[in-house]
């Protein structure tokens, strides 16, 4: 099993690197000159030329990529003017625009995206598993049909619609909530919570619908398994069948999926971050794409991609741990 996971993990990491190479190539052919953009439009040709040299943009693209790889594994030095700017491995390079280390930029935005993703996950798990279970326990009754319809509708609503409507309702009309802003958890936990409540909810409503459906179908499938029948045939009550014998098996895919979703969230919260103006990784990469700040784009892609690769591995392990019958080959 370890062997399997290692192979899968390494395979994905390898592809991830191939991907960074593709990004380099794509940006190389993209219109626009990063040096000109970093320098400013009024920069003279001399100045742009100097800057191009300083950023290493005068080198062939494969050498630039080689430097990037070297930085990743061995660290790199950049000229800081006065002295050098040492960038320890794993070094993702420095921003063309601000000379800031990409690693720092990402670490600075990470808390925002992480708060968003983790908080949303808590809500979607509670809501999703809760309503999924409820619809199973109330099989055949009105509650089930209501929940089934609701969750079906829920999966169909894009986050930017839910978000907009929530904003409209809670911030503009009712004014119960402040307009979402990110305040660090360590800075002011209360503001952190209230500021993120709406983004969390918008993300989670959508996800929880998916989870409710998954929980429900997984639970129904588990309840149809033979061992459930065994305990039913031994007089164990329905409630206990669900909570003790079906829940764990039924939740295995739910947990595995949430690990995956959490990983994906690091890269896919762009819409939410844009809508609510949260300074996370998604916003960072969007603005970096606009100014062709290649090191930042590659860095964020690598980090978000890696988080998903990791999440995949975690999901596999969780799944295997939850379901002893699973063999990873």
């Amino acid at each position, binding site marked *: 099993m370890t062997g399997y996971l290692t192979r899968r993990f390494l395979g994905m990491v390898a592809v991830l690197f191939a991907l960074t190479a593709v990004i380099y190539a794509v940006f190389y052919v993209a219109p626009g000159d990063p040096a000109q953009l970093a320098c400013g439009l009024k920069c003279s040709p001399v100045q742009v030329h100097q800057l191009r040299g300083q950023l290493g943009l005068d080198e062939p693209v494969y050498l630039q990529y080689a430097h990037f790889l070297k930085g990743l594994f061995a660290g790199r030095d950049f000229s800081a003017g006065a002295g050098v700017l040492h960038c320890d491995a794993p070094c993702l390079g420095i921003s063309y625009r601000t000379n800031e280390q990409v690693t720092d930029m990402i670490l600075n935005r990470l808390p925002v995206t992480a708060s968003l993703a983790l908080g949303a996950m808590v809500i979607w798990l509670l809501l999703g598993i809760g309503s999924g279970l409820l619809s199973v326990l109330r099989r055949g009754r009105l509650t089930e049909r209501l929940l089934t319809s609701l969750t079906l509708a829920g999966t169909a609503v894009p986050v930017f619609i839910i978000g907009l409507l929530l904003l409209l309702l809670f911030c503009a009309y009712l004014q119960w909530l402040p307009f979402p802003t990110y305040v660090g958890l360590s800075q002011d936990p209360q503001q952190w919570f209230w500021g993120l409540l709406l983004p969390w909810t918008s993300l989670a409503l959508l996800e929880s619908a998916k989870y409710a459906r998954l929980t429900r179908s997984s639970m129904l499938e588990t309840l149809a398994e033979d061992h459930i029948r*065994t*305990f039913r045939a*031994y*007089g*164990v*009550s329905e409630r206990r069948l669900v909570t003790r014998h079906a829940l*764990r098996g039924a939740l295995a895919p739910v947990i595995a999926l949430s690990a995956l979703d959490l990983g994906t969230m690091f890269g896919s919260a762009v819409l939410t971050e844009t809508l609510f103006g949260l300074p996370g990784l998604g916003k960072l990469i969007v603005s970096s794409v606009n100014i062709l700040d290649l090191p930042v784009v590659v860095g964020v892609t690598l980090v978000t991609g890696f988080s998903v690769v990791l999440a995949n591995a975690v999901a596999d392990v969780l799944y295997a741990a939850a379901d*002893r019958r699973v063999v990873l080959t």
Partner: protein
Amino acid sequence: MSEHLVEVSGLTVEFPVADSFVRAVDGLDFTLEAGQALGIVGESGSGKSTVAFGLLGLHRGTGARVRGSVRVAGVDVVDADDTELRRVRGGLAAMVFQDPLSALDPYHPVGDQIAEVYRVHRKVTRRAARARAVEVLDRVGIPDAARRARSRPHEFSGGMRQRALIAMALACEPRLLIADEPTTALDVTVQAQILDLLHELRAETGAGLLLVTHDLGVVAGSVDQVLVMKDGRAVERGPVAEVLGTPRETYTRELLAAVPRVDAPVAVHVHPGGGSTAEDDGVLLEAVDLRREFGRRGATVAAVDGVSLTVRAGETLGVVGESGSGKTTLGRMLVRLLDPTGGQLRYRGRDIGTLGEKALRPLRHELQMVFQDPASSLNPRRSIGESIADPLRAAGELDDRRIRARVGELLERVGLDPDWYHRYPHEFSGGQRQRVGIARALAPEPRLIVCDEPVSALDVTTQAQVVELLGQLQRDLGLSLVFIAHDLAVVRQVSDRVAVMRSGAVVEHGTADEVYDSPQHPYTKGLLSAVPVLDPTEAAARRDARRAVVPG
């Protein structure tokens, strides 16, 4: 009060299918007295399992319609409220299920599962319940029960799991044990042990036993009374010796006649023309020290571990072994569906074990295979005619009319209507599908067919017909057959020579009569003695013999 342990009268069970109901059990009546054992026997679709489930009221809430009356230990199962029904389930009547792996919760230790059931019915502490679990596990012969009680089901072997399930059934000292095909998923040696255990327990606890099975051999040694079912109705009922010995009904007789017997071979096979004169020339396929390993470096398992055997032209080689013995892997290697990882495979003197797919293709048609599961061996989305025609087309035949004619001929040959070209597999019964599979194997005019458990998924009557067909074809076409099966009786029926496999190796090899009548290897001996027999007296004698050999 009547004080029958079980009293079923006018039981009818119907299941909703699409817009209508299908009747699975149709007006069944029977009784079972305390301490007695009743076997319900029938082929698939006879409704026997439905009866077993009906005794515990397990149809409640599934949409099934249940009519008639079912009384178990004095409780009316059909009318009882949920609480009372739960008291019956496990407390008064306990069920032993067919597939012990899936019947236990994979997440909890076995002991806890038994303890849980115990606590449903007895107001005791957790600790006392655990102790009871260990006690019953010990009773069903689980060694080191206190430790094993903490293991999860997947850490048990198949037989141990079945014992654990029986232990669970015993936990609350029920007055009735219901065993639904308790040994179907098990190897023959383990099957014998489990049946012996059930027998012992019944004697010891005085509980009644309702044994549901398709295998007449299983009931022979285990019950007092037999009820034969067909299409939801009782065909015949009586003491086991009487029903098996002197059946009154035709159906029962047919059923009995179809059961293959280890002791009395049915000579459907014919030795190749010219007898054994041209032995050397007759060798068609030869395996020399053939090996196959699975897994990656470091953690390989040898499924086939150095097997050498020969198949002569026109003869049938039987390969018999329990699950995990590597017989299927061997069979697939013989037709090169799997690549050997070692040894040689010679076909008509030429080493084909290492040929690439392209080089192999001209030879492909000479080596064919018939598979176990007729459901998966035909593409559900193609008409059977197309499936059979496939090898013809692959061989380059383009003329539709000729293909049609040839397929019709093949269908006829395997006993099907030649006009069924356009029918789809789901329109056929299991036996018919297996015939289609055989027709397809015949299509490219092979010299050798490997049959991998060709009849194990079929009912006993169908089984006999398919075996008969294979023998017929071999006679007519001069085919060589490799017949792989776990069922010793079936193998004896068809084989000229037999190889017994265990853990990837052949432990005994010889003519069918040699191997069956005077087995040399202890493993073969054990296997043979475990085979259930139809004569209740003989069965009892064998049980005693086994008990003498394997104490405890």
